[in-house]
């Protein structure tokens, strides 16, 4: 198992109280596998990823418990230096907004080359040649001529490819992509996701894809973890979850998205709003919005029940949810 997150808890200590952003998250990614982490704002999906990468702002953030095992070593127990080395070379992250993640005053070639200069001790000339090679690999046309361009001279899709190139430069074992295509147009999104999938296959990397877009997930993922209020509420291989979701939240989400191939009546809408993380409702965090909520939901936090092989659901009534198709 390439990455295993066990019972992770992350809190933020703010002036108004303790925000429990991540409350006992478990997931794992194997080599060559794509895990999609699905959730809306406030679900904790980005915070978990940032904790794995080690880029959380430590005050006010605080890792309050759990383990993050990368190639069987606990990242949380490592020394800072060691962790930093791993972060640079074996794990990489791709962010949503490529423009603000790239340094505007350095050329693209310099930024790409920097990875090699710093981590592999290459000369600038060699690093630049490597940069051109990388740009070719992510299919940026006329790479040799454009290696001296600045980030703002590229379009959004190209910039995202440059980000991918930077992430891949040192051939990491794990890539975490945090909403990599949300800010992109749909045709560009298709190109970028294709590229990512192809490169993943080539390098046999593990990929954690964080998104809220159920369509992108269906295209790319092998398995899904659905998060709500800092917890995982359902995990499943990708094919099964669309046919038969085992958690009311997943079901609600699937029912509420309009379909390209259907024109229907009123959309199903999950009533209410995502919870305020300062005051997570007792029991199951979804209970105020759940059409199936019973008394037990308001008092007992549901554990992850085993639904089937490789499938789990944190709902007391997962069976009824599954059956009522």
């Amino acid at each position, binding site marked *: 198992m390439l990455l295993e997150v066990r019972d992770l808890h992350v809190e933020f200590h703010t002036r108004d109280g303790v925000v429990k952003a991540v409350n006992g998250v478990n997931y794992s990614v194997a080599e060559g596998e794509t895990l999609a982490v699905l959730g809306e704002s406030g679900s904790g999906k980005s915070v978990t990823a940032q904790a794995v990468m080690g880029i959380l702002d430590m005050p006010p953030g605080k890792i309050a418990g759990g383990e993050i095992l990368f190639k069987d070593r606990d990242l949380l127990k490592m020394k800072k230096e060691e962790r930093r080395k791993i972060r640079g070379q074996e794990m990489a992250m791709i962010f949503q907004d490529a423009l603000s993640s790239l340094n505007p005053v350095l050329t693209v070639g310099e930024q790409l080359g920097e990875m090699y200069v710093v981590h592999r001790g290459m000369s600038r000339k060699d690093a630049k040649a490597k940069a051109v090679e990388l740009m070719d690999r992510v299919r940026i046309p006329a790479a040799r001529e454009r290696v001296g361009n600045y980030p703002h001279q590229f379009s959004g899709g190209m910039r995202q490819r440059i980000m991918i190139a930077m992430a891949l430069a040192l051939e990491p074992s794990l890539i975490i992509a945090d909403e990599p295509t949300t800010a992109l147009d749909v045709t560009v999104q298709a*190109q970028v996701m294709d590229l990512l999938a192809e490169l993943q296959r080539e390098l046999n990397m593990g990929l954690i894809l964080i998104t809220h877009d159920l369509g*992108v997930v269906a295209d790319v993922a092998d398995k899904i973890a659905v998060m709500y209020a800092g917890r995982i509420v359902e995990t499943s291989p990708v094919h099964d979850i669309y046919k038969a979701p085992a958690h009311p939240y997943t079901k609600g989400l699937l029912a509420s998205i309009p379909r390209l191939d259907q024109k229907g009546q009123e959309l199903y809408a999950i009533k209410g709003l995502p919870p305020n993380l300062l005051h997570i409702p007792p029991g199951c965090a979804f209970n105020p919005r759940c059409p199936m909520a019973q008394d037990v939901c308001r008092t007992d936090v549901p554990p992850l029940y085993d639904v089937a092989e490789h499938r789990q659901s944190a709902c007391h009534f997962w069976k009824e949810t599954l059956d009522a198709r």
Partner: protein
Amino acid sequence: MHADHSGRKEAREEGEAARTLLSKSRQGNAYAGGEPILEVRDLVKHYPLTQGILIKKQVGAVKAVDGVTFDLGAGETLGVVGESGCGKSTVARLLVHLEQPTAGSIRYKGEDITKLSGRALKAVRRNIQMVFQDPYTSLNPRMTVGDIIGEPYEIHPEVAPKGDRRRKVQDLLDVVGLNPEYINRYPHQFSGGQRQRIGIARGLALNPEIIVADEPVSALDVSVQAQVVNLLDRLQAEFNLSYVFIAHDLSIVRHISDRVGVMYLGRFVEIGTDAEIYDHPTHPYTQALLSAVPVPDPMAREYRERIILHGDVPSPANPPSGCRFRTRCWKAQERCELEVPLLAVPAAFRDTDSPARHPSACHFAEEKRVVPPEGTLEPVPGEGGQEEAADRAAERAEEAPPGAAPEAAPDTAPEAAPDTAPEVPPEGPAGGDEEPPSGSSRVS
């Protein structure tokens, strides 16, 4: 038939008939029928590019909107889709007079509103209102919600007498699904979805007939989008509103629109009813756009056709000659460079009954079904799925356009297709690296 005006008159009548049929199928939509409430003709907006410090010389222009023509019927929803830079937001701003057009006309109930100013303009503003995209910047953070929604009444005091205003504001809050007792709160005390509702309430205050919604749900969470879309639907039925719904999310546009127009680089490339556009697109850009939209169904990846466009959108300051889409189109030929295709019903379909008979700006328009028909994507377990997939693939192979002659030499190796579905015989170039920059590839 009468040769001279057969085309236009028939098109109009057919359009109206189609609209009536469709509107009746939407629950509770009181369609007035008759003349369109908004007629936009050849709308143009160029932003000049200047050089020089003291004396500015114009060296070019960003042609954000370059000849847009459409009608909007009373009680109907026209969806406008396109990617960034296509000019749809500019069209929105032109419709509500936040920008002045460089050329063209916008007729509201017969009167050209682009020429108005002063009091006449102010009176017209009451009838065309806008809902903005970003719920976090579209409300003044220093005004209470009551003030925000009540401001239209302060600007147009003839709509509501002073004593009545508070009650009207509370009614509006109720109509959009918010507790009227929150009238004294500030925007930052609400969530994104609620703020968007406040923005909608503000848009409704003056009882407009037309609402231009510029990406009203793009910035919201998925579960909240459904709530707001439902609200817009309901309000349309209740108040007989006409919407111009601008978005880049094709699924939502289909859900809410009666007719849809696809924009590319400042022009409409195709326009028709939602069934016509989504199920029978004829313009290559529309087809590419539809094929790129991810569908929440993992079976789709096995037998859905993907058209990948290559290259970037050209700059609106320097659009390609002739057909603007030709630099990325797999069908492009010499004619496309020389002759601008008109947005009209393609000759091939003019005399047929097919739903492909809607205006499309392509010299080589042909119908190509990209979105699988409703119900196709119901996942079928095990081997049965493979056979069905094979059948469908064979169908598509027959449907595939015979006349398209791509410029680049066909490269026979398609991209690694998943194991189950048999390959559709590769027709065009596939893969990316050896591509000439102005091509596109089709992946099955």
